[in-house]
């Protein structure tokens, strides 16, 4: 089985602060592997353990983004591919999905493409589904687990409002994964990190993946960003710890004060 995982290097948004004008304070903010992609990688490594699958990891970005590929190689991926070219700069999710799908065609054959549900910097959750669209393969989004792997099909657990679905999909297919809350992200040992230095890691330009330059970058991006601003923060509610009876009385008092009840 051949698995391709799309990885993105993102600023650690847990450490990003906003200026009052809505722009990001990036000073001292480290770059990390997008946590959803990290989970996708961990999922693929589990499949590798069971089936001996070959894992290829793919990313797009400046040369520094090769760090997330090296992390994946250290954790057990077999080959890494970085799309790095000025022609990719300014790409929105559609143009990015186009570039990645061109690379995937070149990396082929593949049975399964895994993507994180979304990247924590943009939160669009569009790139994964758009890759499936560009490659014209079936997809299931928002999966929390891969339940069963067979040579021709995959059974997954997809989260839905109020529950989950168990779905089967025919391969080749694309799955996007969401991270369980208690998931402990794996990190490699020093030895595995060192050994990963010798694993194959390729850097490709737009030309290398036969991409049409007009479908990349700003030119190939239909998205127009009007404004980025932090959402208005809601006022904090009051928290009171009282006995059940006193709580009921307190609620009645508040509702009366606000003239909801008499």
């Amino acid at each position, binding site marked *: 089985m051949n698995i391709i995982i799309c990885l993105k290097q993102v600023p650690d948004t847990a450490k990003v602060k906003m200026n009052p004008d809505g722009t990001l304070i990036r000073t001292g903010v480290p770059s990390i592997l997008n946590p959803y992609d990290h989970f996708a990688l961990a999922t693929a490594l589990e499949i590798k353990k069971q089936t001996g699958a070959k894992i290829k990891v793919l990313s797009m970005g400046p040369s520094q983004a090769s*760090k997330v590929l*090296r992390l994946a190689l250290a954790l057990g991926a077999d080959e890494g591919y970085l799309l790095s070219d000025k022609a990719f700069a300014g790409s929105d999710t559609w143009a990015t999905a186009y570039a990645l799908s061109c690379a995937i065609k070149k990396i082929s054959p593949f049975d399964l493409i895994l993507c994180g549900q979304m990247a924590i910097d943009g939160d669009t959750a569009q790139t994964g589904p758009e890759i499936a669209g560009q490659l014209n393969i079936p997809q299931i989004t928002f999966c929390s687990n891969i339940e069963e792997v067979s040579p021709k099909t995959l059974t997954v657990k997809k989260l839905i409002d109020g529950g989950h679905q168990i779905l089967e999909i025919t391969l080749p297919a694309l799955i996007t994964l969401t991270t369980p809350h208690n998931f402990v992200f794996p990190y*490699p040992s020093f*030895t595995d990190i060192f050994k990963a230095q010798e694993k194959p890691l390729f850097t490709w330009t737009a030309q290398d993946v036969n991409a049409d330059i007009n479908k990349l970058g700003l030119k190939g991006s239909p998205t127009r960003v009007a404004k980025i601003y932090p959402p208005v923060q809601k006022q904090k509610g009051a928290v009171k710890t009282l006995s059940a009876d006193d709580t009921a009385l307190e609620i009645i008092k508040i509702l009366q004060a606000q003239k909801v009840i008499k």
Partner: protein
Amino acid sequence: MQKIDTVSRQLMLESLKHYAEQKLPFDFLRKSDAENYFSAEKVKEIYKTLGINLLLIPREYGGLASSTSDIYRICQALARIDLGIATAIFATFLGSDPINVGGTEEQKKYWFSKMARENLLVAYGATEADAGSDLIALKTRAEQIIKDGKITHYKINGSKMWISNGGIADLYTVLALAPGGPCWFLIPRDTKGFTQLKHEDKHGIRLANTAGLCFENVIVPAENLIGLKEGQGFLQAQAVFGYTRLMVAALALGAGQEAVENAIIYANNRVQAGSPLSHKQGYMHKLITPHYIKFEAARSFIDQIAKILDTNNYGQATEGAIAKYYASRAANAAADDAIEALGGFGYTKDFPVEKIKRDVKITCIYEGTSEIMEMTIYRGRWQEHLKTRGNFYLDKAKEISTDIYKDIGGKALSLGLNALNDILEECRLNRLTRHQHITLELGRLIASAEVAFAFIKQAQSGSVVEGCPFNLETIKTMARINAKNVALEIASSGAKLLNSALEKPTEKDLYISEIAKECCGIIKDMDSISSVLKDTFRK
């Protein structure tokens, strides 16, 4: 042979950080500190999970053969987690040093392979009750056992004290005096007659096991003598002083940074009199900003010396002493002020700064006290001053008086180095170095001068040191402030120092008024650094 590259180094540091977040949270460290206990199994778990113990082991024996630049970054990161655990791991590195320096190929193959395979905890046994910095007073004896005219074994008698990992190591490298002179022996823990004493109840680094060792007729095979030649022990120890002291500097730097960054995060959130403490100039300029400037200066110095050691392997004894002395003092002062910065909270054990303050004191003591460092620095540079006929600092002063250093404090520091040269010359002409008081003070001034020099060289190089969270503009501003402060310190302390030993005041003006003029703008620069610090370290 392939080396650890920059990306791998970054990934290793990240793996270490995540390991600590998962397995070594503050509450656990705090409890272990209170109980004065951290088990050998915990250290071994770190070895097994991360393979951190493999860093110093050559590639051919299953290790990672890391460079000095790799190791100092790891030491710095370890100290941010806990200086005691860092010490336990560092002790393993230290314990394997004599094998690295003086071991035969066969010894390296056997012992390094064993250390890598079995994740051995190693201890370095040099210090004795009467032989600390003065190792010549060594009393532990190694007696030859001769059979058929050949030395087959050594019988070791004596004791060691304050040995890191002393009570928990699997393997010990022990310095003992043989008939042919001092030498290092490899002694496994279970050797008959070898006992480990109780774990010391220390002021800090309570997660590092520290214990005495006792040798009563301990018989070791002759092949356990490192290098198979007697009398090489001191040379083997001295060969790595530059390196080991640089590592202590990195440990101090990591612990100090952790303390100050904790204080900055606190100051960003603590609102008093209508605004966060981090917005108050007096608070930042006194308790925070000067320390972080010194840390960045120390980082530049350590990084530059590490790169030299990566090429030359051994030596740099004076530079190692400068790094250790400067960084450990800076870290201690910073940790002290970090408690002050947190006020009452800082004085409780609920916040990490109290523990860091106790822990970091050791960096002024182990691998040679600050006073020994001052002597080492003075001796090393006094020789250079004499050898170059007073040109050692004049050449440096000339180098940074050019235009390219103009905006980063080049002129001020150039004057400071000229002043330092004048001080050394006055000492020589008036034979003032007969006063030990003077020599130690010279060590202090020399350390500040050389670190400031390295810092402005770094700022001028056009890039920041790997791992530095600031941009080049910030580093330039820090280097400028530091250069001015150091120059003024050399001139004013120097004047006092000379006059306090002379009958009549010195005629040298030590460029004091010119340096004072160069100090314009320090407060504005400090404001800009304070602002960067408060934006960089927030939660």
